[in-house]
């Protein structure tokens, strides 16, 4: 029987500093063993435990798309012990990945529907995975209009800037980039908070799903906007963060009401979240 606690060994292929404050770095990881890679079958929205032997593990959303072969990608905010250590590692270093874990965005259910993606700050990681996945020629026909509202504090804090520019130029996806504020004269996109830009651009709710990931304050103010636009709670999807230690529903850490965020989530509809007890 397989030991579910064992990480797969991976090598850091590339480290990209994403933001101007240098607190967010993207790690491209390649599996050391081809059989591990073949066994790592995932969907956009899932997460994995990044494991640095001697430091510990951190649960991080998978930023690469299953359509991108040969590597996994994670964007990591430097906040604690493990993530700080990770930020100081170098390409070529070896670490571990355990997963994939959790559920994913409802890709089957969303087939034939328009998809509105709303992201804020560094919560854009699994949303990047989702966009790359939907734009793949094998899947693009399965979904209707794709609209993206993505905001950060300022232009330097946006993730995946090259890809954002490339998507901006495509005609099969509508991008609304925004920043809270900027004094950069070359910034040619929106200025304003994500909820306000969502309201202004008013993506249609008809036949549409909204996937919302961002800081709690952004989610709090975006939800009423989506409700006003006509999105019912069962078609507003979000992803939760919790202190997930084991990732397989056995350590009890991420329990919220009847749900374990690690195995029943991290993806939940607003309809489901409304049924959870407000015990905090």
């Amino acid at each position, binding site marked *: 029987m397989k030991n579910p606690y064992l990480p797969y060994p991976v090598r850091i292929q590339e480290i990209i500093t994403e933001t101007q404050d240098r607190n967010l770095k993207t790690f491209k990881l390649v599996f050391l063993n081809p059989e591990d890679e073949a066994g790592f079958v995932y969907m956009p929205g899932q997460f994995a435990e990044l494991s640095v*032997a001697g430091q510990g593990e951190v649960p991080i959303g998978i930023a690469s798309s299953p359509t991108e072969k040969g590597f996994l990608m994670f964007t990591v905010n430097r906040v604690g012990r493990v993530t700080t250590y990770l930020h100081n590692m170098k390409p070529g270093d070896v670490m571990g990945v355990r997963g994939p874990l959790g559920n994913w965005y409802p890709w089957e259910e969303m087939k034939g529907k328009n998809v509105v993606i709303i992201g804020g700050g560094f919560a854009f990681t699994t949303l990047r995975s989702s966009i790359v996945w939907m734009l793949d020629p094998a899947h693009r026909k399965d979904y209707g209009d794709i609209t993206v509202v993505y905001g950060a504090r300022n232009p330097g804090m946006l993730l995946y800037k090259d890809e954002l520019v490339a998507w901006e130029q495509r005609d099969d996806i509508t991008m609304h980039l925004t920043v809270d504020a900027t004094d950069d004269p070359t910034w040619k996109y929106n200025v304003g908070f994500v909820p306000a830009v969502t309201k202004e651009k008013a993506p249609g709710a008809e036949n549409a799903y909204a996937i919302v990931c961002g800081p709690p304050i952004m989610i709090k103010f975006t939800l009423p906007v989506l409700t006003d636009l006509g999105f019912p709670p069962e078609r507003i999807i979000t992803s939760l963060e919790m*202190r997930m230690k084991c990732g397989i529903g056995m350590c*009890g850490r991420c329990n919220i009401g009847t749900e374990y965020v690690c195995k029943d989530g991290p993806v939940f509809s607003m309809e489901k979240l409304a049924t959870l007890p407000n015990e905090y």
Partner: protein
Amino acid sequence: MSQLILWKEDLQQLFHRLQAAYRVIGPLAADGVVGLAELENLSSLPIGHRDRQGPGVYRLENVGDADIFSFVVGPDSVKRFLHPPVQHPYTFRKSRKRLHIASPRAAPQEKPLAFFALRPCDVAALKLLDKVFLESPLKDRRYQAVRDGVFLLAVNCLHPAETCFCHAMQTGPEVRDGFDLSLTELDAGFLVEIGSEKGKEILNGVPTAEATARDAAEKAAKLEASRSRMKRSVPLRALPQVLYNHLEHPRWAETAARCLGCGNCTQVCPTCFCTTAHDHVSLACLAQKEAQWCGSRVRLWDSCFSLNFARVHGGNFRTSRKARYRHWMLHKLAYWIDQFGTPGCVGCGRCITWCPVGIDVTEELEAIAASRNVP
């Protein structure tokens, strides 16, 4: 199910039969409490002992009579053997360019465990732990490896402690299923019930007699007396909704004002299974040239009362003791019902006895359930 009588002097033979095939774990008086440990022989049982328990109180007394099983459960439980407090899911050896990870080697052919005189509440607790560790899509293989060989010799409880409420949780004082053999201590001998083929087989060569209707009546009367001594009640039918309806009941804050947040209740609880994990780095490899680190991943019992339990980057989901006590009780008596179809409490009373300030979970539940009009 056929019922047999085992004379008291023949209990020794049953014990030897078990000892031949199993490592026998049973009640042992040590450090002033009845704990669980490997039993070398039957005479090490705390025969003639009584445990006096109450909220925040435990006293073990030797009254010197010949009753063999007249005590109940101490702070120790079956949990420690199947879900040990410290586990090592893997070991690692790591340099900058290399990472070697290995599952722990299987222990050298150890005998499987037999639990001798396990109480109905602990038999029920084991069934709940099975749900957590074996009915998940990914099984806990260490748990399974130990669990698969386990022999359960249950003893029905005729001398419940003041804190016992298995009757209210419907797990005792008589064990109903999930055991291999069960014993009820009658005046002259033990009434034996066979719960499995394994149980039947272990009785081979152990002298027994057919039980009579009088024996059965004596058992029934003794169990009835045991039930009537358990005064605590639990509004099972109102669960889980009554708790969901009262998340802001003033009682939570009152209890939190008494609670020390020590986590004793979660450590003695036979079903509390939460763990934390960290990497333990050994100094042994530092001297070696190639390896930078070696060590192991360590999984430790944790408690939802510990301050860092729900801490994440940017905040803590349960900063107050009120939130932590409420989460513990809701998990036991509400979420479990929705997650696993049964409460996570077996009524053993350990959390009441071992709470340093004597908080009584049944009293708290009753107080909240009683005032149905308070939001």
